[in-house]
């Protein structure tokens, strides 16, 4: 898989540092009420410093407060800039392949060579063998093998063909063989990748619903603390104390939830980055957030749970028929069968010692048609080899006055029970036996479903197979439920039914007939190899076209919320210790009796306030790695998850600042 740069180099850090300075204006902080208040506090403290300086008073404490507050805002902006830079880096590495591409645009039947950046939605371009595809789009004519390694990191070539469910192509990938006409899907600057870059850039970024809700809550808490601090001077003056305004600003900044307020934008951007790092392009931040709430996941069996190409795994003759006879008839029936199943029959026969005959030129070939649903070969001498699904062959036998032996039904059931697909083989006169075709489950699938189950996500497998076959595969793969004999339109109905029960549904799809279901699902993950219709309908596109990728997205969504919740709890718990540091300091001069609340025995009022402020500022950069990586998600029950997080971020959040502030106070005392 494509590995984007995870760590910023020193130039990137420098750029982020400058970017953080540039964001330090009241206007650009307006979207973040908590840090806005800190910045206003810093400006007020600065004014007090200047005023005292002009009056010839000491300004050490005021100056230090101003600087620490500015640093607090800068740390918050730095966190956001780093997250942005990482996102831009990841997106750019995906995007770079597209730059400086040439396109052969078809206009009025003529080809013209233009720069890829001039392409607009709806343009048709011709891509020849060896060319790079100039833009995202859909093949409308032709077939080609394409190397997509520039985007997906997967070096094996993929086959893309017009009119199939694999008609989507990505700009910047290279056509190895073939010649295609591509319909351009987007205007310049409006591709999925461009939109994804918009999601990680601060200025263009829209807050996700949950982030907005949390911002409102944090703003309310900020308002509460503003009231607490603003009402203190009149109360204090009633008991004859006058309070130091710089200390009050410090108290306010320590109380408002700066830790989560400072890291909130970075957490959101980092969530998008993690999705992008998993090679999933989300069209909105909301989609990633919703993924964490998914209750039901709808999966196609074929290509998702199993490899999809069914392989012949055994020949099962009916009673009284020699195994070789069945084998040879099976070989004969598959001589003209170009499907993977047909080829696997020949392969199995060879493995069992058969010698493949030369394909006769004078034989009659019965091609597979949707009407008869059987295929085979009739040699000139009347020897036949016919195969087909059980019910189709029963009809065939009836028409050709063949006897249908009872034991063949048992064989059919046996194969189906094991999750295989039975094909009945007949000679011209007799039913000979059954070929067992088995679907092979992809390795690691069962583990992923178990993990999803632990996260509360039910998986439902959708398949066109009969219930028996479906049941076996379902049990083996460990899905919670399955729908057998499903038609494409059943998916839409199934999603609606699940949603009617209140469930949030995710669905993975690639075909045009998946598009309505992808649009209806709360999270629709389209495969990049899929059709343009599917990609438009879904709200995420997986560049690797790996259907089980949804697990990663569910985890990213959950991590996003957990990180926010844990840091909010941590931020609030921190306040307890800060109160015990600052309140005695604020009142120390005027009301000595309150000194008894100084549990930490801090050195002096000034050192206590500075220690609390420095702790408050430093905790932001200390938590940047956690905000960017997200809190590790383990598949445990909600109850345990809450208990762990409450212990670490709630209880830990109460205790840590007592230790931290005491330590900082000792250091500051040495410096004073």
């Amino acid at each position, binding site marked *: 898989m494509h590995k984007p740069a995870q760590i910023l180099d020193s130039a990137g850090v420098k750029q982020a540092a400058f970017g953080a300075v540039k964001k330090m204006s009241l206007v650009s902080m307006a979207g973040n009420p908590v840090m806005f208040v800190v910045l206003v506090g810093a400006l007020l403290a600065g004014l007090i410093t200047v005023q005292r300086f002009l009056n010839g008073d000491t300004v050490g404490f005021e100056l230090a407060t101003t600087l620490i507050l500015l640093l607090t805002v800068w740390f918050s902006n730095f966190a956001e800039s780093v997250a942005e830079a990482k996102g831009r880096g990841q997106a750019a590495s995906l995007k770079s392949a597209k730059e400086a591409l040439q396109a052969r645009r078809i206009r009025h039947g003529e080809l013209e060579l233009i720069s890829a950046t001039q392409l607009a939605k709806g343009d048709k371009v011709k891509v020849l063998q060896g060319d790079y595809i100039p833009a995202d789009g859909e093949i409308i004519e032709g077939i080609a093998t394409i190397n997509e390694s520039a985007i997906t990191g997967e070096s094996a070539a993929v086959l893309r063909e017009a009119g199939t469910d694999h008609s989507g192509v990505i700009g910047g990938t290279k056509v190895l063989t073939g010649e295609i006409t591509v319909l351009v899907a987007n205007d310049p600057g409006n591709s999925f990748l461009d939109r994804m870059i918009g999601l990680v850039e601060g200025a263009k970024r829209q807050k996700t619903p949950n982030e907005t809700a949390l911002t409102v809550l944090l703003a309310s808490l900020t308002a509460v603390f503003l009231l607490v601090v603003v009402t203190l001077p009149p109360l204090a003056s009633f008991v004859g104390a006058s309070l130091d305004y710089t200390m009050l600003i410090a108290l306010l900044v320590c109380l408002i939830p700066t830790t989560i307020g400072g890291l909130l934008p970075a957490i959101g951007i980092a969530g998008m980055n993690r999705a992008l790092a998993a090679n999933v392009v989300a069209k909105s931040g909301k989609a990633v957030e919703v993924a964490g709430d998914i209750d039901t996941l709808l999966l196609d069996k074929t290509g998702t749970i199993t490899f999809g190409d069914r392989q012949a795994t055994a020949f099962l003759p009916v009673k009284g028929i020699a195994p070789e006879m069945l084998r040879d008839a099976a070989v004969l029936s598959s001589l003209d069968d170009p499907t993977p199943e047909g080829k696997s029959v020949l392969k199995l026969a060879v493995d069992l010692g058969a010698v493949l005959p030369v394909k006769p030129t004078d034989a009659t070939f019965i091609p597979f048609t949707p009407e008869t649903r059987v295929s085979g070969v009739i040699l000139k001498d009347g020897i036949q080899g016919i195969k087909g699904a059980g019910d189709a062959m029963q009809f065939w036998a009836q028409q050709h006055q063949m006897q249908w032996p009872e034991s063949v039904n048992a064989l059919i059931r046996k194969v189906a029970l094991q999750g295989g697909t039975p094909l009945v083989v007949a000679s011209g006169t007799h039913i000979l036996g059954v070929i067992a075709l088995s679907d092979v489950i992809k390795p690691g699938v069962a583990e992923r479903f178990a993990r999803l189950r632990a996260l509360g996500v039910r998986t439902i497998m959708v398949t066109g197979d009969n219930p028996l076959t479906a049941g076996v595969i379902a049990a083996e793969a460990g899905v919670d439920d399955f729908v057998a004999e499903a038609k494409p339109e059943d998916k839409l109905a199934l999603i609606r039914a699940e949603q009617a029960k209140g469930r949030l549904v995710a669905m993975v799809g690639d075909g045009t007939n998946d598009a309505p279901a992808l649009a209806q699902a709360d999270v629709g993950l389209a495969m990049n190899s899929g059709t343009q219709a599917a990609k438009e309908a879904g709200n995420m596109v997986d560049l690797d076209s790996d259907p089980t990728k949804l697990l990663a997205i569910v985890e990213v969504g959950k991590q996003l919320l957990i990180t926010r*919740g844990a840091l909010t709890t941590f931020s609030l718990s921190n306040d307890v210790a800060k109160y015990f540091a600052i309140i005695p300091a604020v009142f120390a001069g005027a009301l000595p009796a309150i000194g008894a609340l100084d549990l930490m025995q801090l050195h002096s009022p000034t050192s206590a306030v500075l220690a609390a402020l420095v702790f408050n500022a430093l905790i932001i950069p200390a938590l940047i790695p956690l905000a960017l990586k997200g809190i590790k998600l383990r598949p445990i029950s*909600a109850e345990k998850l809450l208990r762990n997080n409450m212990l670490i971020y709630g209880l830990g959040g109460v205790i840590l600042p007592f230790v931290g502030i005491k330590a900082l106070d000792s250091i500051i005392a040495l410096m004073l």
Partner: protein
Amino acid sequence: MFEITLIFTTALGLAWLLGSYMTGIFSGQSHFSDRLFNPIEKWVYRAIGVNANSGMTWKSYGAAFLISNLVLGILAFLILKFQHLLPLNPDGIGPLSWDLALHTAVSFLTNTNQQHYSGQAQLSYLSQGFLIVTLQFVTPAMALAVCVAILRGMLGGLNNDSAKEGEARNLGNYYVDLVRGVLRLMLPLAAIVALLLTWQGVPSSFDGAQKVNTLDSASPITEQIVPIGPVASMVAIKQLGTNGGGWYGPNSSNPLENPTPVSNAIETIALVLIPMAVVFMAGGMLRRKKFTLMALVAMGLLSVSFLGATVYSELQPNAAFAGLSAQGPNMEGKEVRFGPELSALWASFTTQTSNGSVNAMHDSFNPIGGLMTRSGMLLNAIWGGIGCGFVNFIVYVWIAVFLSGLMIGRTPEIFGRKLETREITLLGSLLVLPTLCVLGLTAITVAIPSITGNSNPGFHGISQVFYEYTSAFANNGSGFEGLGDNTPWWNISCVIALLLGRYLPLFLPLAIAGMMSSKRVSPDSNASLKLESPTFCFTLIAVILIINFLSFLPAAVLGPIGEALQLATMSLEK
């Protein structure tokens, strides 16, 4: 300690029985009480022109609640303002000043019973016996109705099974809930308690004041006028309806209002009975008995620890006695017959339930005891006022759900319905409201000493002002006393606190529950938050404590905590 335990457990047991009775009368199914009450209620509905079968959306329910209060409020104001022109005024008592009339009307309308007038002397029989008694019966039932509607909304309303996602939900009929609350709950209970109190010797008579000879013959006064009246029934509804305004000035410390240990136990139980029963009712209405258990544990732990601290505080000597040989508990402002423990129990319950009646003077409590009474009021969710207490508790539950929901990696949801920006915006304003109101008004008042009008300087002065606004905002009504509070400033500022403290904390949660009721309901899974788990209960307690600790600690430091520390330093110096 034995008496405290006995009263506490008896109250819980009775609340359990009463709670299932209340579930019955509000769940809309046929109930054994129907045979008696249906005919009366039918007549009442016809009289007030209500179609009992029509349901209401949260908006019309909220509107009915506000409009009925407005009408009642205007009526109350007019009666008080013009009582001198109205009948039933044999003593020729004059009108109240407009600000005092407004404060008194709003105070009783909000189920607060904060009194800035002095006792019976300023109210006519019509004002006292008709208006105030009516409000004491009706206003608790109004808040209870809103609480019932919120509980219905949390499960999607009465039409949950038939309504589609996003469709307006039926939260019941406000007037039906109100009438049932008065007729089936408040009146019968008040009758029972009044009979029990009469049995214990509380006056229950329409006779005039009694003239009695004093016992001390050496005293220059040989005769005393003892006012009596229908005291038992007044006291019953005062206690049951989280009202708190007594018949006699000294409230239930007066021996005629609270004559015996048994009457004291009955009145103490009556204080918490309905607020506790609401917790049991909630489990019944939500069809989640375990939710009741969780709420009982959360409230019980907080209640018992506050009670414990108060009892401990009052068992300590009064600071004025420090260093003297006369040690013993703080008996200042307490009845000797009740002693420190039962006084502390009453004080805890009356502040936790927003009742406000007293059997001892809270102003004279030791500082920690004073702090605990104030904390009980500020939280206003440990039992709390009838209906509104549990609604406040639900607000804390919502906030805790939001935080814990995030921490388990899901969009926060309760009973399957998601808490989103709209709901959080309203919850946020409910968070800001107490600080805005209590701290804001306290700061303004102490900043202008000419309007403060209190008898104590320093920390204790702040405590008094802080207590007055807390009591008004929490619709409690108890006073720290010592304030010259019948001034236009005190009357009007308290009216603001009373109104904000009553209507927003009931209306906004109704709006939240109403908006959430029509949302998609996600099914329970092992990834959803378990509200009934010990972890959530602990989180909830932490949220309740931390929010209030952070909001009010600095003010408390300048009030009771500062006072306690100062007294401690003084006694050390002695």
